[in-house]
């Protein structure tokens, strides 16, 4: 089957090169839209527990300003490692840092709370416009 005939059947574009360029343009639009939406349009995000565990300390208060990398809270979790055909479990404390700068709007969790991954809300952060939360 000739290239032209196959193209008529499978694509709305004149050639593969046109289709490649259109796909690249489309992805650029999609990626830029997501980045602009998250950086400028979404006002705040709710941070949920990144793992199962127990909150040991919340180091921020509502209305506090935080910078990227600041400690937000600590969570005690079970870390599993499989070695020598046996499962080793140890309790470790993980520190959760801000991925972007902004203002804490509210804090829902407190020290001692048991939390489940992606189920429990920890805090709401209003990120600085132009940063990616």
């Amino acid at each position: 089957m000739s290239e032209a005939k196959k193209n008529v059947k499978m694509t709305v574009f004149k050639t593969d090169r046109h289709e490649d360029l259109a796909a690249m343009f489309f992805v650029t639009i999609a990626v830029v839209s997501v980045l602009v939406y998250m950086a400028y349009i979404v006002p705040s995000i709710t941070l949920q527990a990144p793992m199962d565990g127990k909150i040991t300390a919340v180091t921020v208060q509502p209305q506090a300003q935080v910078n990227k990398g600041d400690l937000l809270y600590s969570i005690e979790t079970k870390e599993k490692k499989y070695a020598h055909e046996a499962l080793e479990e140890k309790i470790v404390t993980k520190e959760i840092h801000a991925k972007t700068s902004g203002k804490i709007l509210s804090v829902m969790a407190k020290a001692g709370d048991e939390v489940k991954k992606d189920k429990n809300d920890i805090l709401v952060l209003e990120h600085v416009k132009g940063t990616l939360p």
Partner: protein
Amino acid sequence: MEEKHGMTKVVAIIPGLAFMVLTLYILRTYVEPWMTTAVILGQKGWLVKVLHLNYILLAIIAGMLYRNLLWAGKIPAWAEEGFRTTRLFIKAGVMMLGSLYTIQSLAKVGGVAITLIMTFVFGTILFVMYYGRFQKMDRSLVGVMAAACGVCGVSAAIATTPAVRAKPADVALAIATVLGFGIASMFISPFIGHMLHLSDYQFGAWVGTGILNSGQVLATCLAYNPTIAPGTAVAYGEIWNVVRVISIPFVVFFITMWYWRAEAEAEHVTLIGIIKDKFPIFIIGFFAMTAFSSLGMLGAEGSATIQLMRTVMSWIFGLGLIGQGAYIDVRELKAAGGAPLKVGLAAGLCKYALALVVVLLFVSKEANF
């Protein structure tokens, strides 16, 4: 059919495209959540846990049902232009796939493992090319089958399709062959692994290299050791699998050059000429996305931005796959005969057995990462 231009063409695209969007919306909003809770054969989520059905396979199945049952073998005129956007979405999805990986994640695996995985990927491709020619298979089908057997079933077959002008039936055959092979190896591999006393690292390395589909690598590793933790078979299997998946753009390039070189020989065109005219430039987008991801320009790992980016990617892929399914005509599958199955199974078996031998000879019991 009359060729449309400009705004007429854009308007003609809308009904079919809207139908694809609506289908995907129903699949993702209602069917997918239902599958995770439905009790079949006494097991909750049987369709997901045992059959490994996900939105990718659902989208292809929905498209196939539309064409072969609802529309009696032909996409209706009102939907035809919309369904022709299929390859655009697949190419866009392949580019966005690059955002899943970072150079840092590759560095974890190490040079020896990367060399080993790449040797198997390209060794399998060359085997399929040779044996496919011996079986007098169509070159487009050989190209798709080579990608499917070399890398990982669904994604690689789909990524190669537009570059080698394969028919959707070719893709369906390639996917069916590697998934069928994968299901058999899912049951056999844990048994072999235990019999040979493989460590979790060795088992993960073996199935991460030898099994052809990403989902089945995961399932097989979990069947060997159900624990999900660093140091288990599933953790190692997935890391090895990432390296294999990231080779997709190289594989697409290699197979494209192989396919068009033969076409060009007949027309006396040089290799440079082929690269200039036929190089699938959309794979540059894949590398660009990996570079952006590695530089943190798409948001930090685990951030809300990255999560939204992945949701967008899954919708783009989903749209492309509904269209892909709608171009699969079951009559073409029957017409293809047994040669593709023979080639796919031979390639799969050789890779599976050789990977085991190499792992036993060269991979230590414990990982150094």
